[in-house]
């Protein structure tokens, strides 16, 4: 994990856990806002939500890394463990994705009218989008959230 990154020539420190947690909360708030915007204005803000996702992915990767970097044994164990935690949590969300896709294909076409059908289609989309976003960012977010202050660790 990087303790500081350079952004437009300015160096920003991420050694403090409070600051990292603030970053995580801020990025996920931005993601939730972009998903909510997409929900309300699907045609206008669809591309904006995808761009927000890419920006958040880049920001998380810049601070926490991709997980493929070389590290010492402790770092490798930490990395593997956060991927384990992320996998366990996301399997529940994937079941929700499957259920919404199933509702959309069965209920929407046969029982529901066009309004409910469109709503189910949108729900399925938003849930899938949230799943993809979390799949790309959750291990890094857990790492940023749980690692202690770097100075204290030293």
């Amino acid at each position, binding site marked *: 994990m990087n303790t500081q990154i350079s952004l437009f020539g300015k160096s920003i420190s991420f050694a403090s856990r409070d600051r990292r947690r603030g970053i995580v909360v801020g990025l996920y708030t931005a993601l939730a806002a972009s998903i909510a915007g997409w929900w309300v204005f699907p045609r206008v803000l669809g591309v904006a939500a995808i761009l927000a996702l890419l920006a958040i992915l880049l920001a998380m990767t810049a601070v926490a890394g991709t997980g493929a970097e070389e590290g010492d044994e402790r770092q490798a164990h930490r990395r*593997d463990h956060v991927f384990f935690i992320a996998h366990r949590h996301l399997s529940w969300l994937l079941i929700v994705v499957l259920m919404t*896709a199933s509702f959309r294909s069965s209920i929407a076409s046969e029982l529901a009218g066009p309004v409910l059908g469109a709503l189910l289609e949108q729900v399925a989309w938003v849930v899938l989008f949230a799943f993809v976003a979390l799949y790309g960012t959750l291990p890094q977010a857990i790492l940023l959230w749980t690692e202690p202050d770097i100075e204290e660790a030293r």
Partner: protein
Amino acid sequence: MNAELVFFGMRVSMARRDRRRALVISIYVALAVLMAALWFTSHWHGTGAYVFWAAIIACRLFLGGNYAGGLVKQFEGRAPRQNQRPPSLLALKLRIYRPVLAADESKYRNDEREQHQRDWAHYKAYQVLGVAICILWALSLQRIVRPGLLDGIGMSSDEMYFGLLLIVLTLFLTLPQAILLWTEPDMEPETEMVA
């Protein structure tokens, strides 16, 4: 990881890696056959959940990991629930009643090495599943941007999306255990370890 699989009362040694690999291949072949059969009978309309339940049963009986039972110890390492009621007659008749005592921690709790192996297997599975999820995402985008692009292959975009979702979910539930069973070297049989 357990070196022995108890299947309907029969004890099968899984100490050798080639046996475990054969089991992994058999499970995935069986799941693929089930998916293909459901496709030809119903196009997964109303039957897609059967694949999910088949993966759960495979975990419960053979792979382990998510539940007590199977070769891989439960990932969370929780103590088994101690039920005061007598076991059901069906479980006894099918010889699938195998209680694990809470006091016998080595049967359900992962030691440090096993925890590292478990985490590493999830890390590897996460990479593979990431590729599958990228394909899923691309397919869902294609359904909106160009709905008729895949019309010529005899499967609608919706059906392909749902089928891929089933595959991803099945891999999500089974891949870490499969990686562990595939990569762990030959073990000594449990009887020899006791001796």
